[in-house]
């Protein structure tokens, strides 16, 4: 190699050549199109076909959706407006505009006295105030006329926010109660509110005396206190038995078989004392007028919350080494899972009454919630069992070798791993459960689909299908989509294997 300026090398580049832009067709949108849409002649054909399909669907659906008519009193009015505008097709969203409250809440009553006092005060005073319009001696015909005139003037949004404040507050509190369970970054003290929430929700939705739910809560707390204090003095077994005895005396009448009435259960006595001391309550609403999407949320959330612990217990029971527990769990799971949900719902609504002692008809909604919970828990048990089976045997042995007893080894070692594996399956079951709530339409509860039938039965809206079904479908989609996104978040968060 020679050195120096007088070398035979004609040209030496002193600086780097600036990076040239990639050749056209290898960047940006062009490249994406080439790689993804027309990478081969076969893909190019598929792309053309796909574009044609999308175009033909959208060109049909979009004008129909976007040109929709929002203000009309009936389907025929919709058709007249459409013809007047010279449109070929147009959705008649007016039915949603008029009836969305009914689809959301069914025939759940609005708080008419509140609406009248706040938004319709002049006419309310003119009609004679509370006693004349809503009092015990008032005439139902006049009241319905008054409420009808008031609602026509207020508009649906006012009625939504103030007339339905009870279910709305219950829903907002539900979000607050569920948040600490879903997101572990929130303060743990919020869990106390989550525990209290079921009682608050029952009070808000069903109304009646506030002391009903409070007394139930006190009874449950007292059972736990009894268990703790007796266990501390003697053994855990006696603690459990004492707790069960207290629970039975508080909520049931074990002496009923002997014909002793009146003393037990303690529940009405305690509630009576409270009611006499400090009567407070809101209008009681029987559950047979619950309906609409609210009903789906009530059944869905109760079913989800109750079936998870039950399903885990059943899964553990099925793997138990004690034959009795194992057989009971296996039988339960196979029987419940082997029969369609609709049959269980019919059982709950029609047949259960014949197996219960005469006169003890309990709430249809409660019966449905119990059936849906049992059904979902049988499925969950199998999902969780899948998670348990996927854990290597070494994990169980490791927990045992640490000297952990059964419950501790499950709680600290096995279940956290098994449940993490099962998350997609669990959420799958939950979404299925939530959508299955529409089946209650067959036993006379007014779920959103049942309400679309009722709305269609009116002279104004007979013959309208798509608009109602799309609205109900969207409501369900929003909830199911949230559940699915949450499960993906949870899986990402719990991923510890550094894949």
């Amino acid at each position, binding site marked *: 190699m020679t050195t120096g300026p007088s070398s035979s090398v004609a040209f030496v580049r002193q600086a780097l050549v600036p990076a040239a832009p990639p050749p056209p067709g290898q960047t940006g949108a062009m490249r994406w199109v080439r790689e993804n849409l027309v990478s081969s002649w076969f893909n190019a054909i598929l792309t053309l076909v796909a574009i044609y399909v999308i175009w033909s669907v959208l060109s049909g659906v979009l004008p129909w959706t976007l040109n929709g008519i929002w203000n009309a009193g009936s389907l025929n009015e919709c058709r007249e407006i459409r013809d007047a505008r010279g449109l070929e097709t147009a959705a008649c969203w007016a039915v949603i505009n*008029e009836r969305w409250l*009914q689809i959301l809440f069914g025939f759940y009553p609005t708080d008419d006295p509140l609406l009248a006092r706040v938004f319709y005060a002049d006419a309310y005073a003119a009609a004679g105030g509370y006693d004349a319009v809503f009092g015990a001696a008032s005439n139902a015909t006049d009241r319905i006329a008054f409420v009808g005139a008031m609602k026509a003037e207020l508009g649906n949004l006012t009625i939504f926010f103030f007339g339905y404040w009870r279910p709305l507050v219950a829903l907002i509190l539900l979000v607050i109660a569920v948040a600490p369970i879903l997101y572990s970054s929130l303060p743990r003290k919020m869990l106390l509110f989550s525990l209290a929430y079921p009682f608050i929700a029952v009070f808000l939705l069903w109304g009646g005396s506030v002391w009903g739910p409070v007394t139930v809560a006190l009874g449950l707390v007292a059972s736990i206190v009894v268990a703790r204090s007796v266990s501390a003095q003697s053994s855990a077994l006696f603690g459990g038995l004492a707790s069960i005895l207290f629970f039975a005396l508080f909520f049931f009448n074990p002496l009923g078989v002997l014909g002793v009435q009146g003393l037990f259960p303690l529940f009405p006595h305690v509630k009576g004392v409270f009611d006499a001391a400090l009567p407070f309550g809101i209008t009681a609403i029987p559950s047979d007028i619950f309906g609409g999407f609210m009903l789906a949320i009530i059944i869905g959330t109760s079913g989800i919350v109750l079936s998870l612990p039950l399903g885990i217990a059943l899964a553990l029971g099925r793997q138990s080494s004690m034959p009795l527990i194992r057989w009971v769990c296996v039988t339960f799971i196979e029987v419940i899972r082997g029969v369609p949900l609709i049959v269980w719902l019919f059982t709950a609504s029609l047949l259960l009454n014949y197996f219960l002692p005469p006169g003890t008809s309990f709430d249809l909604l409660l019966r449905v919630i119990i059936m849906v919970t049992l059904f979902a828990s049988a499925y969950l048990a199998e999902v969780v069992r899948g998670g348990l089976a996927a854990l290597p045997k070494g994990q169980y042995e490791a927990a045992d070798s640490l000297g952990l007893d059964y419950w501790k080894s499950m709680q600290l070692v096995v279940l956290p791993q098994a449940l993490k594996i099962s998350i997609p399956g669990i959420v799958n079951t939950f979404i299925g459960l939530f959508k299955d709530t529409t089946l209650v339409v067959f036993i006379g509860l007014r779920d959103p689909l049942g309400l679309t039938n009722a709305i269609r*039965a009116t*002279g104004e809206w*007979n013959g309208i299908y798509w608009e109602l079904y799309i609205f109900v479908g969207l409501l369900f989609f929003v909830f199911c989509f949230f559940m699915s996104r949450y499960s993906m978040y949870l899986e990402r968060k719990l991923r510890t294997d550094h894949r």
Partner: protein
Amino acid sequence: MKKSIFLGTLAVAGLAAGFASAQTMADVQARGTLKCGSNEGLAGFAAPDANGNWQGFDVSLCRAIAAAVLGDAQAVEFVPLTSQTRFTALAAGEVDVLVRNSTWTFSRDTDLGLDFVGVNYYDGQGFMVRTDLGVSSATELDGATVCIQTGTTTELNLADFFRVNNISYEPVPVATNAEGQQQYLAGACDVYTTDVSGLAATRATFENASEHVILPEIVSKEPLGPAVRHGDSEWGDVVRWTLYALMNAEEYGVTSANVRELASAPTNNPEINRLLGTEGELGAMMGLSNDWAVNVIASVGNYGEIFESNIGENTPIGLARGLNALWTDGGLQYPMPFR
């Protein structure tokens, strides 16, 4: 329906032991509301408005009973029942009266332990076809495809009709009236068959109703009426005579507009006087106030008014009176005399 008969029988068997109540009237008066088993939604017969108030032909009868017993036509709690649950609910005492377009049949009246107390609407199964099919009689429907709701009596009636007339058809099974409407409109079947009132209500919703015609043949008898439980004749009397009061009011020209005036003083027609309680003590014989029929007619109108405002020719459903005209006008509605 087979299933409902089974469930109803079960209901009656289960309740026969403990249920010998003749107390419905006292129960209703103590409760202050009438529990009326109603349809979940049937155009013209029962449907909720935007405020959740029920309206319709059957609903009006419920309101009439409430007006008779309680003096307040709105004091009704409507319990929507499916065709599977309706008879069980009545037998189990969940409703006081069932006014849910239920056909009065032998087995329901006897085996199920129900009492049908009258007929508020004479219906029958009919056929609807497109006008451009050029058919003027159901006997010309040889080889037609027919949309038919499965599991109903209409399915059996259809088979009978085609067999008797020695013509063939191809059934297209549908689950609900809504589905039937859609299938028929989409051209999946040439003929749609169900009760004529339902066909009329369906036809009224079509954009071009004149392109469809309901054929003149009626192939079955469907007398629809209110039902009560066996063994409570007092209550059955109240329901029956409320229905007759509505029809008698029409016969004697008593309407919601003039009833107050006619009831203010005895008229020179003793029939009207007895109906409205200005003469005699007919209300007291049923355990009701003497002006019970005045309350009924003032709040819901007479039978003809109820018919015209809910399903009559000026409504979208547009049914003619036909069989449901009074006997004086050549129909079948023959109210028993108030005497």
